[in-house]
């Protein structure tokens, strides 16, 4: 019974939104404090310092964006952004942002159409490929943008000359740069849901490959596809090396040009983008929190899991187990 009580109490305190509560109680019944967990004080101090570090850029940019050139405070830098008489810098920024958004869309399309289906196919049909894929996907990290750009120069001048002069072609390069991140995210989820077995089950029931992919595998990968999309978007929106050295115009190259005449505008735009990215990543991290690998497609199982947690806790008589399954 103690286990059930604990689970119920824990759920109640969770409902109260008490996130600061010591989750892994160091001393239970006056016994042993876990060696492999930080003490409450250590945890608070370290995390407070980390959040201070993260907050510094935000505080710095906020303060800076309200400073006037003579040292007083002003809101004119923010007003400039929304004024109808847009300064030239802002029109330029709009163009760069437009280019960047087009690049982001094409990069995501490349990941969806070419990369993710192939990663799934490799995992399901060629399980032996896992070992060399792991090595292969390290290569884009070993040959980063600053090195690759030297080889991209001739490739993109060919594209520029013969195929298209528009800016979105950069997406071909950004798709490669995002590849290791897409791979690690998708691969972890594929392993967790046992894709090969699911595929065999689907096919023994008569489903073809496309149907298996669409109604069995992709729903299971929903969470990792969403985080892939966000990371890909963040990488393509923030990429500077290739765009700048190939003389393209994107949001980042424009920010640099503008900073030379109106550094306040650059800072205001940077602050907005940084916060939007953070919020988007934060929201997505929450969407996946209810699901764990091997637990099917998530959300729907929430209510039964409460009972499950209590039962498991009862059986094991351990507070830790109820802790774990409660958040499953």
């Amino acid at each position, binding site marked *: 019974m103690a286990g059930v009580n604990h689970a119920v109490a824990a759920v109640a305190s969770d409902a109260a939104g008490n*996130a*600061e509560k010591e989750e892994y109680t160091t001393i239970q019944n006056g016994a042993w404090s*876990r*060696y*492999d*967990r*930080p003490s409450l004080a250590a*945890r608070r101090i370290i*995390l407070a310092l*980390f959040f201070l570090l*993260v907050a*510094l*850029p*935000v505080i*710095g*940019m906020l*303060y*800076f964006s309200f*400073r006037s050139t003579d040292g007083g405070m002003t809101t004119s830098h923010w007003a400039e952004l929304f004024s109808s008489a847009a300064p030239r810098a802002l029109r330029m920024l709009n163009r760069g942002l437009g280019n960047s958004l087009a690049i982001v869309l094409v990069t995501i399309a490349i990941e969806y*159409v*070419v*990369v993710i289906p*192939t990663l799934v196919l490799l995992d399901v049909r060629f399980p032996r490929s896992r070992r060399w894929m792991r090595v292969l996907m*390290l*290569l*884009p*990290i*070993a*040959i*980063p943008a*600053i090195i*690759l*750009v*030297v*080889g991209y120069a001739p*490739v993109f001048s060919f594209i520029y000359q013969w195929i298209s002069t528009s800016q979105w072609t950069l997406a*071909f390069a950004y*798709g*490669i740069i995002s*590849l290791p991140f897409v791979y690690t995210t998708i691969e972890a989820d594929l392993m967790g849901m046992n894709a090969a077995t699911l595929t065999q089950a689907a096919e023994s029931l008569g489903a073809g490959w496309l149907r298996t992919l669409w109604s069995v595998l992709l729903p299971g990968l929903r969470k990792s596809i969403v985080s892939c999309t966000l*990371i890909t978007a963040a990488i393509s929106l*923030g*990429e*500077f*090396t290739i765009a*700048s*050295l190939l003389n393209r115009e994107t949001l980042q190259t424009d920010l*640099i040009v503008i900073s030379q005449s109106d*550094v306040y505008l650059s*800072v205001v735009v940077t602050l907005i*983008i*940084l916060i939007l990215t*953070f919020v988007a*990543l*934060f929201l997505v*991290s*929450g969407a996946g*929190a*209810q699901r764990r690998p091997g637990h099917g497609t998530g959300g729907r199982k929430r209510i039964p899991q409460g009972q499950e947690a209590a039962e498991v806790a009862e059986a094991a008589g351990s507070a830790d187990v109820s*802790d774990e399954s409660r958040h499953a």
Partner: protein
Amino acid sequence: MRKAKDGLGLVPFVAYVVIFFALPAVLVVTSAFRAPDGSWTMANFDIFSRPGVSASFWNSCWLSLLTAAIGSVLGALVCFALLGCREGGIVRRLVDSAASTLSQFGGVMLAFAFITILGNNGFVTLALRNIAHVDIYRNGMWLYTPQGLILPYLFFQIPLMVISFYPAMSRLPGHLAEAVAILGGSRWVYWRSVAIPVLFPSFMGGFLLLFANSFSAYATAAALISQGAQIAPLQVRSALISETGLGNAGAAGALATGMLIIMVAVICAYALLERRASSWLE
């Protein structure tokens, strides 16, 4: 028959990776050995004897070593603190999203952020000058030099360590700590003789990843340092954008090949360490 059909499905991906990764990578190396007239040559590597070029590689190396060392230790401490936080809880989510934002998101924006913190009119600079009467730039402006890159680089190094090292740390089996306690060992004994040795390969893997990350970082430096080329990536910039004609494709190729050798060595060591690490933490 089915294998052949499945193999066909790989064609678009293979074609994409060959054209936009393998081909440019090969072009980097071959361009290093090409003379402007198209013949093979070693002359491009003479660029390393130019003043400033070797120094820039040296600067890149110490900058990367230093920021990787500080970043990996501080990042590991954050991972340690995260062990006490609930998986999927609000603190974990905040740290995760903040870390991915800072580590993935363009160095240009980080450079702007840093100018507003420690630039001549940055709020920390002003606060120190007006309140504590300390002028951090009394001996000249150091933010726009390689030394000045140390602090901005830490802003993406620490978060990258948090992201790459936390999975290893969270897989540390709980029964190890229990075993130490049952055998009468203290917390100190557990960390010194068990946890740290088990985690060491993963930690070194994270360290190497951080080294590779800052060695190849371009945007932050490019945004902060507009004159000169004190680190290796900026040398590639000046070789690529100087307008003296075709000869520079070879120089850029030679510089990029020089960087490539260091990067490949680091990433190979990383791959070996990762393999060793995973056998402990399965």
